[in-house]
């Protein structure tokens, strides 16, 4: 049903119906944003990646051939862009280049989360995830928060299930060490 609905939306968009693109965005925008948000840890970076993903979708949707689910395809774009953003941030930090447009205070103050208890939880999670290298963070987020199976993650990332298990194991060990030390 979902696949059929996606197929019709893409078909309409390819045929020139711009409203179909809006419908696709409305359907998936929150999942795109939250995956980027968990990967990147702050709203401003997540917003940047979300908009980039939507632009890529707009440009490439015409070549989408339904060999996978539409969301698997979108997920691939989000996760790749998020990893690129993490690396970009790491390079900026390494060379101590200040992000003049988005200084750290602005990054943490500018948020769309309104309830404080969830904000605290997400802050705590952010601190844990910051300890993980990008690839481990990717698997950890997909397994824990998006509830994806190894097979689905493998489809998205192109990595073997065995390799993903090993990555998840190392990520989990680091998370457990951190939670034990900080509780």
């Amino acid at each position, binding site marked *: 049903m979902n696949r059929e609905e996606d197929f019709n939306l893409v078909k309409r968009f390819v045929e020139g119906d711009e409203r179909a693109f*809006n419908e696709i*965005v*409305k359907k998936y*925008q*929150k999942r795109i*944003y*939250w995956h980027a948000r968990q990967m990147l840890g702050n709203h401003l970076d997540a*917003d940047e990646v*979300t*908009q980039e993903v*939507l*632009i890529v979708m*707009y440009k490439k949707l015409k070549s989408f051939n339904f060999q996978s689910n539409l969301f698997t395809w979108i997920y691939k774009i989000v996760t790749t862009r998020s990893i690129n953003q993490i690396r970009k941030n790491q390079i900026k930090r390494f060379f101590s280049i200040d992000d003049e447009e988005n200084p750290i205070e602005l990054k943490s103050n500018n948020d*769309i*989360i*309104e*309830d404080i208890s*969830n904000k605290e*939880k*997400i802050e*705590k*999670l952010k601190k*844990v995830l910051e300890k993980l290298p990008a690839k481990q963070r990717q698997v950890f987020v997909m397994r*824990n*928060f998006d509830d994806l199976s*190894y097979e689905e993650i493998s489809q998205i990332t192109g990595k073997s299930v065995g390799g993903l*298990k*090993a990555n*998840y*194991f*190392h990520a*989990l*060990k680091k*998370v*457990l*060490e951190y*939670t*034990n030390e900080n*509780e």
Partner: protein
Amino acid sequence: MKTNNEIIAKYFSGLLSKEEVIQFEERLKTDSALKNDIEKFLSLKKIDINNIEIDERYFANLIPKTREKLESRAKSKLHKLAVGVPSLAITIVLVFVLTKSNMNNEKNSLSHEIINNLNDTQIVQQYFTDIDDATKETYYNILVNEKPSVEFVDEKEKEKILAVYDSFIDDQLDENSLSQNELNNIISKIDFKNSK
């Protein structure tokens, strides 16, 4: 504590065998420390994205913001094309002109290098290899004395040799694009005595 981290991580990663999973779950029933560690980890997962109160205006504005970005990128692409294509064309023309001029310079400098640096022996070897010794001897006499040697007894033979000589000089002029002066200059430097 460290042991717990390892086994918990293996359990959740799916890296334990079936027997190990059974053992782990049995241990979990009685080991409160292990249970506590797992609960701490699971509490991290208790963030339900669908129930977080968020500023919905962000998502309402997402499509207009994205479309605005798409339009501005399309405009900037057009601008880049308008500036880039003529610049590229000018660059290609300049590169072509400069390369051609450089090639001519290189050709000229190579010709001069050959003229100035070939020694007499090399020239003699290069130009006279196909000529037999008797003819070589005759050329030597012609070039040194600027006239056929007195040893020429047969006038026809002399004319034949002079014709070969003229033809040889013409060939060299054609093939190497040397001027008459440059060729004369080379010939005047030839030490025939050494080449004999």
